[in-house]
């Protein structure tokens, strides 16, 4: 299952690319011969059902997982040939479940983002200080700087983790489901922040997301995965159709225009609650539902 790469980024440059990458845990193959270019300066969202390999792919893109075949290329060189520290200066990563040490303050945690820029006797330079200060400001966490991370709300904590990744001052930012466990308001809050980082600060962002509609709204580029392969890739308006949703999630749906952002809005159709009064039957998709109604 290889990707069709020509759609929207035929001309765009890509510093980070996966070339025929296969990923496996032990003998269990999770991702099979996958090709992907991450377009520079864009927000790329990776979507797909649970266990489709999206987080695994992100781990490989971040050099955390070594492909069993194929390779990930960063700035023209194999990412696994690059030293860890060198990768960390180019690419920042926020894993799904980072752990905050008990009692650590926000500023101390964010300061750890400076690790790849520090040396044994360069533990806290003026540029470290400037970067941390800027990261706190960008994420709106300056006021929390002296608070303990474990006292914060889930949304605040996620901002702090993003601040840590920002303090790393990398142009590429990889975020693994940063909105999971957050309520809808905090999800928007975090994604607005991502949007700002991309548009105002020119960061290239790769983000694994569960929520299709938020992915459509915030991403320039969507990668839809199923069973360790890419089903569709491109601009949300081109890619997210009822057909793709059925292919990827096995779910019948109606795709309409999001009244707020004019991006695709996926409205799922359930077998149990389908007979809403004003459902225009022409937009119905899926043979089963057609015959039943």
């Amino acid at each position, binding site marked *: 299952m290889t990707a069709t790469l020509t759609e929207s980024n035929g001309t765009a440059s890509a510093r980070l690319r996966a070339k025929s990458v296969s990923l496996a*845990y*032990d003998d269990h193959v999770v991702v099979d011969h996958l090709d992907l270019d991450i377009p520079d300066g864009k927000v790329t969202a990776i979507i797909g059902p649970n266990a489709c390999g999206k987080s695994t792919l992100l*781990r490989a893109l*971040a*050099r*955390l997982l070594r492909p069993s075949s194929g390779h990930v290329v960063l700035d023209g060189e194999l990412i696994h040939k690059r030293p*860890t*520290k*060198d*990768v*960390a*200066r180019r*690419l*920042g*990563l*926020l*894993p799904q*479940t*980072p*752990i*905050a*040490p*008990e*009692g*650590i*303050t926000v*500023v*101390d*945690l964010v*300061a*750890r*983002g400076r*690790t*790849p820029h520090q040396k*044994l*006797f*360069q*533990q*806290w*330079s*003026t540029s*470290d*200080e*400037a970067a*941390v*200060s800027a990261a*706190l*400001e960008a994420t709106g966490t*300056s006021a929390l*700087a*002296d608070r303990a991370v474990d006292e914060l709300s889930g949304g605040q904590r996620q901002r702090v983790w993003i601040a840590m*990744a920002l303090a*790393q001052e990398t142009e590429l930012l990889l975020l693994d489901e940063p909105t999971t466990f957050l309520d809808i308001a905090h999800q928007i809050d975090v994604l607005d922040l991502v949007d700002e980082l991309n548009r105002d600060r020119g960061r290239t962002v790769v983000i694994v997301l569960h929520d299709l509609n938020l992915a459509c709204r915030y991403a320039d580029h969507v990668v839809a995965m199923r069973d360790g392969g890419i089903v569709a890739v491109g601009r949300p308006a081109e890619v997210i159709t009822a057909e793709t949703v059925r292919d990827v999630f096995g779910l019948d749906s109606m795709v309409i225009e999001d009244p707020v952002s004019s991006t695709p809005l996926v409205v799922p159709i359930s077998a149990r609650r389908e007979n809403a009064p004003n459902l225009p039957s022409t937009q119905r998709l899926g043979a089963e539902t057609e015959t039943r109604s």
Partner: protein
Amino acid sequence: MTLLDDLHRGADDLATSESSREVAAVSISGRVIRRRGFSVRLDPRAIGVCVGLAGLIVIVGLWSISVGDFPIPISDVVATLLGNPTEDSEFIVGTLRMPRVLVGTGVGAAFGMSGAIFQSLVRNPLGSPDIIGFTGGAALGAVVMIVYFEASALQVSIGAVAGGLIAAVLVYLLAWKRGVQAYRLVLVGIGAGFAISAVIDYMITRAEINDVQRAAVWLTGSLNGRSWDEVRIVVVALAVLGPLAVLMQRNLDRLDLGDDTAAGLGVNVGRAKLMLVLVGVGLAALGVAAAGPVAFVAFVSGPIARRLVSSPRACIVPAAFVGALVTVVADLAARRLLAPTELPVGIMTALIGAPYLLWLLTRQARTGAL
């Protein structure tokens, strides 16, 4: 601290004049010293704690040298140490009591550092090397050398390090199931500890009575009759492994954020963990080689140090000072509590450590961490 204050202020002035960027002050913890391309972060509280503990160690050490069947006034002890011995004091201080105190200090420091490293790596205070069988492995290695090879101090050390490493590898492999989970490591380690002590018991019952006596006293963890040979072991251990442990504090702090986050920050996770385990096992094993598996010193030092420094990091250096003080105090108590009978120091440390272990076990069982 005034010197540091001045340095800091000076560096700040320099920084603001040099840097064109507007930098909002960031109140990072610790004190920062900057000079041109050089910058260090120090934790004044940790330094204070270490200085305070060092003072206490000196006081208890002098006291311990002074008391005994043949008391020597503190003033004479100090005079002897400064090179002006009286008639009797040279032998008693220089040959009998001084090495004992030095070995106690060094062994305590080694156990303290080792405990702090493993407790942080395993993310659980029960991950201490004396709980999860690593010191047991070192003890087995040493007993093999004593019983079968009538070994010298150096050979016992080699046996201990080898035993500790083998135990660590075994426990790690047995606990492996797609990576190592902390609670599995702790449970497997405790089991391995029992298996190891069974093997030691078997060897003791089969061995020559003289060797058994030597091994048995040593197995309780004793500082009795320690000579400059053992002092040399701990000095070498601390001089080589101590600085390595301190250098690796940085990586240990990053690993505290989770393996993936640490790797994302540029830490070579596999190599960093391997180095930490090697240094941690080395420290514990050399401690065992010098004084036997003194119970619970590694186990209590890390948590006490963290409490004193009140820091979210693993406090490797403060834990060394705590371990040293705990061991020296325990040895003084072991010598004087039932004087003229001397108890092995391991019994005293067990008296402190065992209740803490019970409390921790019940608490973790209740909160479901274990």
